[in-house]
Every structure is written in C-alpha cells, then in structure tokens.
C-alpha cells in the first residue's frame, strides 16, 4: 500500500468515525438519507476511488480502493459507498459517463432480467430488477443487459424507472425497480471483455466480503471491550474462561474473514478471479454468522435491545452474507472447480489462489 493510500485510509477512517454515530445509524435504519455525510465522502474523493483518473476519478488500485469498503463496514457507514465505487468502475470501464452523486448497480441475480431492444437510433430497455441496493437515492443505476448474447452496460437514470421500496435486515434500501425506458446510444456500451453477469455478481460479492470483514472486526472490538467492562460475580466477564474461549473463536473468525477479504480485494477487476472471490465470499459469510452469534452471546440482553449499537452490525452481517450470492451458491462454484481439478489437481488448485 502506498503512502497516499495509507493517508486516504486514515482520513476515511477518521471521517467515518466522526460522522457515523449511533444516532445516525439509527436514523439511517429508519430510512433517513444523510446528505451531509455523503457530501463529505464526495469531497474527499472517496466515491470515485475506483474510477480511472482520465475519467475524472481518483484511480486507485482496486485493492487499495476496496480497503475503503472494509473501513466503511467497520463503521457501519449507512451510505452506498461500495455500490458507488462499483457502478463508477463499471461505467468508466465501459466508456460510459460516470454521473455525479450516489450510484448503484443492479445485482445480476438470475431473476433480474433486462430485455434490450434496438429502436431506430437508440434502445428500449424493459424488465424488473429485484433488491437493488440504495436505488431510491441513486442518481443512476449501472445494469447489465443481454443483447444477442453480448452483455451491454446500461446507464439508467431515475426518469427511466419506477421503484418499490424494500429494505434488508439493517434497514439499508434494497428496492425493486421497474424499468421501461428509451436509452440513447451514449448510455449503452459493451461490457469490458469477458465481463458478464457472473463477473458482476462476483464484483458485488467481493465488496460484501470486504464489508463483512470490517463489520466482523467491529463486533470483535465491541465484544472484547464489553467483556472488559461488564462485571458479574465480582469481576469482568472477560475473566471467565468460557467467555475468553468464545472470544478467541470470534477473533479467529475475524482473522479468517480478514484474510478472505484480502483475497477478494486482490481478485477484483475486469477479469475477476471467480474462484478467489467465491472463496472469499463463502468464508466471510460463514465467519459472519459465527461472529454475530458469539457477539450477541457475550453482550447478554443489553445487546438484544434496539438502543444498543451491536445490532447495526450483526444485522448487516446477516444480510450481507446473503447478498450477491449466499454461501451455498458460491460453494457450488468452488466445489465444481475442485471436482474438475480431480484428486491430483485439488492441491494445485488450492495453491493457485
């Protein structure tokens, strides 16, 4: 990591820590948009970190830019930073304009089908997109649509769709978007070579893996701190061996999630390494469930209240592990690659990631 990246990460970390208070998290969970905080992200250049410099962005290396997503996960940043990074990256790499403001991408779920037709000297796009993150606040959605077997990137602006609001467990917007609009040629372009729905899904999975690693770091920190503060039987509960052993397991899961998210960050790109990202998503997803469970156990009843902050993070973990492909889906990809490698090829496959 270069010095500038370290500085950027430090700055972002401070900004997130200063601006994402428990009351902000609570307001966002109720559906509030935090315009001032969003503006600060933009002013620091965080939102265009993955957009190349010649397209007006900060042009960071993906692994460095994605470090921001892990930090955002640690703080529970209730804003579409990850989605904006990915949408900006995809639009720029397809040569489409990267609009200002929050952006998002349509997950390439099998049920999210867009039909693109040629009309005169433009296009018509129809279809329904389910569970689009933050769609209601987005200045544009980047979506992939199939045309004659070729994936095309489409830039959709709010005048081209209507939406039904829905949320995930943490209250983050996951809207259903009905698309029926004309698109000008300038808003449709071929996806980067080799980049199709599976690659888009993998890119989203990589972002969620990073965010989960960050949120797991957070629940570990909260749990250890709480175990040092809370006293029962005359001493901090962290002095009890049973609690210590649980926290050790939580720390191990956090370490595994951290390593997995590093794998995801390195595998991100126009030709993402699907195996590596699949590994990262399933391992962080499994760690997420384990970490959330232990964190709640350590916190006792207070952690089960709405007033306590723990749930902002555990709910995100429970949702993020399902978004952009749950463990079962990505495990099947890994398992089939293992089967393809055969008994003697299994080790070389593992050692290749």
């Amino acid at each position, binding site marked *: 990591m270069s010095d500038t990246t370290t500085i950027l990460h430090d700055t972002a970390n401070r900004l997130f820590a200063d601006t994402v208070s428990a009351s902000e998290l609570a307001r966002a969970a109720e559906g509030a948009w935090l315009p001032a905080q969003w503006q600060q992200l933009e002013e620091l250049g965080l939102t265009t970190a993955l957009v190349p410099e010649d397209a007006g962005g900060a042009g960071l290396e993906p692994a460095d830019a994605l470090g921001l997503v892990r930090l955002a996960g*640690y703080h529970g940043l209730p804003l579409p930073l990850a989605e904006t990074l990915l949408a900006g990256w995809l639009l720029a790499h397809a040569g489409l304009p990267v609009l200002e403001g929050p952006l998002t991408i349509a997950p390439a779920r099998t049920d999210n089908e867009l039909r693109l037709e040629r009309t005169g000297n433009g296009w018509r796009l129809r279809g329904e997109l389910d569970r689009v993150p933050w769609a209601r606040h987005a200045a544009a959605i980047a979506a992939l649509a199939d045309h004659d077997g070729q994936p095309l990137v489409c830039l959709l602006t709010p005048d081209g769709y209507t939406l039904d609001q829905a949320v995930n467990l943490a209250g983050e917007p996951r809207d259903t978007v009905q698309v029926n609009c004309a698109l000008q040629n300038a808003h449709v372009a071929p996806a980067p070579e080799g980049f199709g729905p599976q690659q888009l899904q993998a890119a989203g999975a990589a972002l969620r893996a990073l965010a989960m690693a960050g949120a797991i*770091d*957070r629940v*570990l*920190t909260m749990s*250890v*701190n709480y*175990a*040092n503060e809370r006293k029962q039987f005359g001493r901090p509960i*962290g*002095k009890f*061996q049973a*609690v*210590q*052993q649980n*926290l*050790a*397991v939580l*720390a*191990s899961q*956090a*370490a*595994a999630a*951290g*390593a*997995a998210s*590093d*794998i995801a960050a390195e595998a991100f790109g126009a030709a993402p390494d699907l195996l*590596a990202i*699949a*590994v*990262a998503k*399933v*391992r962080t997803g*499994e760690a997420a469930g384990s970490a959330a469970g232990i964190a709640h156990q350590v916190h006792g009843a207070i952690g089960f209240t709405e007033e306590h902050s723990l749930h902002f993070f555990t709910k995100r973990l429970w949702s993020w592990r399902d978004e952009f492909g749950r*463990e*079962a889906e*990505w*495990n*099947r*990809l*890994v*398992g*089939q690659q*293992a*089967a*393809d*490698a*055969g*008994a*003697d090829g*299994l*080790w*070389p*496959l*593992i*050692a290749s*990631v």
Partner: protein
Amino acid sequence: MLSIPFPKPPTSDAAEALRHEVRAFLRETLADRPPAERALSWTGYDADFSRALARKGWIAMTWPKEYGEHERSALERYVVLEELLAAGAPVSAHWIADRQSGPLLLRYGTEEQRREILPRIAAGECYFCIGMSEPDSGSDLAGARTRATPVEGGFRVNGTKLWTTNGHRAHYMILFCRTGGNTEDRHGGTSQLLVDLSSPGITIRPIRDMSGLEDFNEIVFQDVFVPESAVIGELGKGWDQVMGELAYERSGPDRWLSSFALLAELNRHLGSRPSERAQELLGRITAHLVVLRRLSRSVAGMLERGENPALQASLVKDLGTGVEQEIPEIVRQLVDIEAAPGSGDQLSAVLAHTLMYAPAFSLRGGTREILRGIIARGLGLR
C-alpha cells in the same frame, strides 16, 4: 480495532519456481505410495525418504551456510513443506529436527552443539524428539518434574517423559526439565538439555495409539548422566526458550493439512460431476483451506522478517485443526461407505485412519483450549 494482524503474505518468484521442482520430485519419488499411506501425513516415517530430501537440499533450508549450506528463504521452505504435506510424503523422521529442534539449537545452542548436530540434521541423518510432556504435566508444562541434578562434569537426570513422538527412533531429545529452584518457582529453574538417547539409564517404551500406530513413547530416565556441554542456551532459562520453540512447533502447514489425503480421495470418489450437495460441502472445505493457507503464509512472512508470530501461529493451528477434524465428517455426509481399516477400498481405508487419528489434531502441540487461552491473552483478556 482489536483484530489480530495477519500481514499480506510476501510473494517470491524463487519459491514458485521451486514449487515445480518439488512437485516433479514428489511425483516421481512417491509414485507408488498408496493413499492409505499418504494419509499418515507427517507421521509417515521413512529415513530413506528423509535422506533423499536432504540430498535435494530441502531440509534445514533456511539455516546459515556454515551449518546447513542452503540459506533459502522462509517462503521457499514454506513451499517445500506444504508440497510435501499435500502429497502425503513420509517426512516424520526429520520433521521435528527441521521444524523446531534445529532452529532452537541455531538460536541458543553452543557453537560446538551447532557444528556437531546441525549438518547431520541437514543431511537427513539425525532425528529429534520433544521431551516436554510428562505423566503429571501435559498442558501445564511448567509442572514438569523431571530433574537434572548437578554432579561432577554435568547432571544426573531422573524422571519420566511421556507421549514422546519418535522417541524410539530418534537420536536426540531436547529435554525440558528442572535444574534448580523448586516446583513452586514454576518457570525459574527450568532448562533445556540436549540428550543423546543412547545414554545409559534411558528406557524407551513405545506406546500404541488408538489408530494402531506406535509413534509415541514413554521415556524413563534413571540416573542418566548428561554432560555440562549438553545445556542449551542458559541454565534456568528453559521456560522462555521452550515458549519460543512452541512458536516454531505451531506455525506450519502441518497444522491444517493432516487430513488432506482424505479430501483428495473424496474428490476422486465424487468424480467430475458431483451432486449439488457435494459441490457445496467440497466447496466449503476447499474455501477454508485456501484461507488457512493465506493465514499460514502470512505467518511464514512474519518468520521471514524475524518477527514473533506466536499468537498468529496459535490462531492458525486452532482454525486449522478444526478443519482437519471436519473433513472425515464431510466424507461421511457425502459417501455411503463404512470406514474399514486396511480396506482395499482406498477411501474407506483413508477414512478409517483419519477418523481414528483426528482426536490427536487438537491435542498434540498444545490443546485447543490452551491455544484459545493464548488468543484470549492476545486480545488483552488475560
């Protein structure tokens, strides 16, 4: 943020080039080794193989030229280790000497000890065992009672060591014992001695383990004379030294690849078109191994930089042995087969061995509970 740091593992072109060489060597040398023997993992014993490996320069790889003549990087060594384990190579004879006894001598040994022993380890000729555990002192190593009493020119040793892997076929033991103080002063007054196992007064009794192997032993010391020159490091500093040794003992891929032969056999059995359920379970374990490998390489990088990864090593060992123990359970969920020791069906035979050996994974080298205690200390809870 309280997470335990695992820095990005360094990459090394030299190590990757070496990997191909190691694979080619293993393919040829182990061509006839059946899965049921590969399943022994690093308990498989074959002195000829150890010598052949030494001729390739793949023992004592990182030691300075004057003792081992290789001076390769910790990363190159790591690649050799993981390739050996993944292939189920019989590395047991030299494993402990290469992993911890040699490095301990390199760090604390006298010049004489190093000159005499290290080149023989590097040649694959000299094997070691670990004399830590005793009948009444397992996890509580500081409770060791074996005592070395000063006498003219050295010590007289009395006591019993237990579970000593390869004690019956090793040349030396690194003995952890009391040399002074009393058992009240638990850490002070302990030392490490380099004991020639052919010394008079040593009785070695192999113990059969529940999987049928005779790898570990009870070793009784009755008035065994050990010369002064056998003291490793400083008299009375045994505790600090042994803690350093445990970091070597816990840090490697031997703590997450012990069941790999079984996973490979499972993969062979499932074939190229596994069911969705098989894909999911196989995929999950594969993902775990990929991530463990990354954590483990991070530890290798820390060793390479001269850092002390004792905490990280404990964490990887705890996670790794858990996965090692899960693999037989996954096989049972996917394949309608009964484990049968010695079966001609290799999957059944490998499953049988791995199932029966698996309890040891989270005992040997420090139990799961002890490791988690170390992690809890790393979190500042103890």
